[in-house]
């Protein structure tokens, strides 16, 4: 993971484009029916998974924060903003930590990030409702986070080398092993 510094202009454009893409993902997801209300795939999490190992953590953080703020502004409410912000921050922290750890591949990182996202949201809900009773949702959220995280993680491990080869994302396309 040797990083050659990118020109600022390229970083800005790359972040802006990927931010728009993740915003589109957040929007399109609202049309996918889910067995339980509030459940979602978390396709937008694909973008930080692609950005952290290539461009860097600050860029990925900016894109994620912008995406959360903009999607709340466009499709959500102040409440949903707080909610997804909590999930986003917890999930981002876990994701960065796991990238540093270099123990799991993209699917593993994505699974734990998704589960962390759901746990963060549960915590906010506990404070908002003032009751720990909502933890009965936890198994559902772990299960859905696991499956959705795997899907997004596999998607990321498929797209990352292709985007590198296409020259969209920086970094050598050949990885160790």
């Amino acid at each position, binding site marked *: 993971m040797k990083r050659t510094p990118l020109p600022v202009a390229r970083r800005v454009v790359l972040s802006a484009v990927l931010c728009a893409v993740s915003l589109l993902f957040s929007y399109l997801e609202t049309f996918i029916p889910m067995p339980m*209300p509030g459940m979602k795939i978390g396709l937008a999490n694909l973008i930080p998974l692609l950005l952290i190992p290539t461009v860097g953590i600050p860029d990925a953080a900016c894109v994620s924060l912008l995406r959360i703020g903009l999607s709340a502004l466009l499709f959500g409410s102040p409440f949903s903003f707080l909610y997804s912000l909590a999930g986003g921050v917890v999930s981002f922290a876990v994701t960065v930590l796991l990238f540093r750890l270099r*123990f799991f591949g993209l*699917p593993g990182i994505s699974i734990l990030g998704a589960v962390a996202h759901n746990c963060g949201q549960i915590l906010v809900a506990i404070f908002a409702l*003032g*009751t720990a009773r909502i933890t009965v949702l936890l198994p559902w959220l*772990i299960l859905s986070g696991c499956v959705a995280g795997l899907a997004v993680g596999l998607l990321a491990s498929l797209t990352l080398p292709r985007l590198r080869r296409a020259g969209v994302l920086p970094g050598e396309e050949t990885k160790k092993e």
Partner: protein
Amino acid sequence: MKRFWRRDAVLFLSVLLIAGALFLLLFLLRGKGEGERDVVISYHNKVVARLPLEVDTEYLFECDEGYNRIVIEGGAVRVAEADCPTQRCVRHGELIPADVVPIFCIPHYLDVKIVRRGNE
């Protein structure tokens, strides 16, 4: 990234197992037995209404954040209508005594659950 595949697979299966174990735990903790049930409506975790489940009725919950129209019908309770932004409580559908998960309306700090009469 290929070298991590086995670890990722193990992680996936263990997270599934954890979820499964939690499901089992909830299933075992579930309230069993017959008996009269009450619908308990709470706001900020304070009980605002306690209604018998067997009597079909309608209850309009109102708070500073908005309203939820709660309908008790045929031994089940549901939120028929609400002005909350998420509408999760409405989409939750009917709640029956066997259900473990209460209906939550997080924007209105509301939760609706079914308890055995004489409890709490």
